[in-house]
């Protein structure tokens, strides 16, 4: 049986039209044009300063190319073969890996500890002041703070050795020692970057519903139990984000190493290449030794390493990270 719907004498069925979804309808087309027009400044900047340099870097890594010579010569994988035959390059990868492996757990544990402390100990009224104090180093230029840390690590009159002497520990040569130069850079980096990670962790902690912690306290859970069974699992997306961020920043660490271990007057990455990381070597290869193609190949390898690590972490995170 068919049913006819009528309203004030007009058949409603006659008025129902199928909805057109064609995007080129005049109104939708002008909407799309407006959207792209508004996006265009950002897109142009992104294209000019991200895609073009990246594409050009990939391009010259397969060529023999100099900044002052117009001639380019395709060399295939020769640049990559050259790199992997150089002990210094392999050592720089090793140094970067060591730096990253130490920095990630140190960063995560210290930042989480400070965030928990800030959240629990600091009163709401003074919370902003403490958060600002922790975040302040991060907004200070790396070069400036690194110069201060050079003074702190000065073997004769630096604060670091004064503290060690006060604690009856032997003084160290810090930046002049093959063994202690990289740890000294790590301490500076940790101090400088901690604020950012603490703020990220604080945001993650604030995201954990208060009721969950209240239930735990009603149920008689100890602080350790709450931390292990509730806070850590619910904080896992934040921790994963911090790990990715710390990995990328560690592999790309440059300014503090450059400033603390030599600066523009030479010797950066020393002593005896003990602080020469992949990114520092890339810079030196390009701008000190004028081998742009080799440096481009190094940068590409660095990019692939970071990409691979990120993918591995993503794979691991699928098993460990809990998303609500």
């Amino acid at each position, binding site marked *: 049986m068919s049913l006819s719907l009528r309203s004030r004498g007009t058949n409603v069925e006659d008025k129902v039209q199928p909805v057109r979804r064609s995007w080129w309808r005049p109104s939708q087309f002008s909407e799309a044009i407006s959207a792209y027009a508004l996006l265009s400044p950002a897109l142009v900047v992104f294209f000019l300063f991200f895609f073009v340099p990246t594409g050009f870097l990939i391009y010259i890594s397969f060529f023999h190319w100099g900044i002052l010579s117009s001639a380019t010569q395709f060399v295939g994988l020769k640049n990559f073969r050259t790199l992997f035959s150089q002990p210094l390059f392999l050592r720089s990868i090793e140094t970067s890996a060591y730096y990253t492996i130490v920095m990630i757990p140190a960063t995560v544990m210290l930042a989480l500890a400070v965030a928990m402390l800030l959240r629990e100990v600091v009163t709401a009224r003074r919370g902003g002041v403490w958060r600002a104090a922790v975040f302040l180093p991060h907004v200070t230029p790396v070069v400036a703070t690194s110069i201060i840390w050079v003074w702190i690590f000065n073997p004769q009159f630096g604060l670091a050795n004064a503290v060690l002497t006060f604690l009856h520990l032997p003084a160290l040569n810090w930046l002049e020692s093959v063994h202690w130069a990289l740890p000294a850079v790590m301490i500076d980096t940790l101090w400088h970057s901690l604020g950012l990670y603490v703020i990220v962790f604080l945001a993650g902690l604030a995201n954990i*519903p208060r*009721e969950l912690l209240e*239930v735990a306290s*009603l149920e008689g859970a100890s602080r350790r139990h709450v931390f292990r069974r509730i806070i850590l*699992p619910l904080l896992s997306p934040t921790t994963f984000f911090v790990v990715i961020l710390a990995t990328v920043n560690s592999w790309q660490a440059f300014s503090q190493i450059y400033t603390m271990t030599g600066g523009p007057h030479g010797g950066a990455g020393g002593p005896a290449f003990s602080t020469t990381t992949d990114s520092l070597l890339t810079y030196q290869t390009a701008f000190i030794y004028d081998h742009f193609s080799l440096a481009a190949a190094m940068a590409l390898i660095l990019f692939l390493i970071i990409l691979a690590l990120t993918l591995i972490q993503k794979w691991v995170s699928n098993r460990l990270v809990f998303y609500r």
Partner: protein
Amino acid sequence: MAEVRLEGVTKMYGEQKVVNGFELSVAEGEFIVLLGPSGCGKSTTLRMVAGLESVSSGKVVIGDTDVTQTSPATRNVGMVFQNYALFPHMTAFENLAFGLRARRLPKAQVNERVAEVARMLELESVLRVRPKNLSGGQRQRVALGRALIRKPAVFLMDEPLSNLDANLRDRVRMELASLHRRLAITTLYVTHDQGEAMTLADRVVVMNAGAIHQVGTPAEIYEEPADTFVAHFIGSPGMNLWKFDINAGARGVVDSLDVMVDPGLWPESSRTGTEREIVVGVRPEHLELAEFVEVPGVRAAMEVELVERFGSHQLVHGKLVGVGHPIIARMPAEVEVEVGTLQVVAADVRRVHLFSGSSGERLGGKIAMDATESKIYGSVDEPWGGR
């Protein structure tokens, strides 16, 4: 199961007093509902019993123990939160077992207790499921189970039904009532829904602005509201409340409604001439078209402005002719009332409430009516029959 006493409990946030001198004694196994509008301090009161909020002054006693300064874990209370507060990364089993595991009970005992509670709340089939994959009702039951599994002395519930849809809410409400009948755990239940309060409670505590307005059985709260706040808050829609000047004369005649009130009923202030107003209250469901009221009653003419038809009944909104006070009458669906017409409505005199115009408090005694004069009287001494 334990008795709960709140003795002069006050909560201050800075200078602001959110709970003011709360006095309540809850008997063992009693179901008490704290009812009031948002921000009236009912949840804060519950949280002070749980130990989740500190008490600014006063005492919280559970059983024979003063727990005012003790931690939540030592109070032996179970609590269900408005949003259930289930651990999202744990299965239903792990959520139920959380408290037992935190207290390091042996594994076999944990499994046994979880199985027992799961059976009682019909959760056996979803024990391995995480909260996000549970339905609203199942989440609600897991939260209940988690609070019950330790067999707490006091059960606290903070608006536990507010996240459920209407149908499910009715069902879970019945389940809660039946659960309480079976377990008889002393329960404090917070809600702003009077339907929940009236159907679940042994006694209702009506709160507003941090203070208790009335404590009583649902019937007492409905039949004899202590003041105009309770009168208007209880009922859907709330009681019609009309404030009138008291005219000169021994009996204190009220304008327009043809209501007379015995001056003996007034507070002292009115007799000395300082109080000149009275509030007359009639519930919408007690108003009918005058032609259908057979017993003596109060009559009022109303101008109909809006008729809301609900199928089972209709709400007739309008204004009292002459004074312009708003009036709502709840009438059977079959009664024909048109917008723009004048209707005379009436209520049985036993359904008419009188409140002080200045304090809003209920005036004592019963209201009586002089049938011969068609006037209403209130009398402290003469319950019914007029004078």
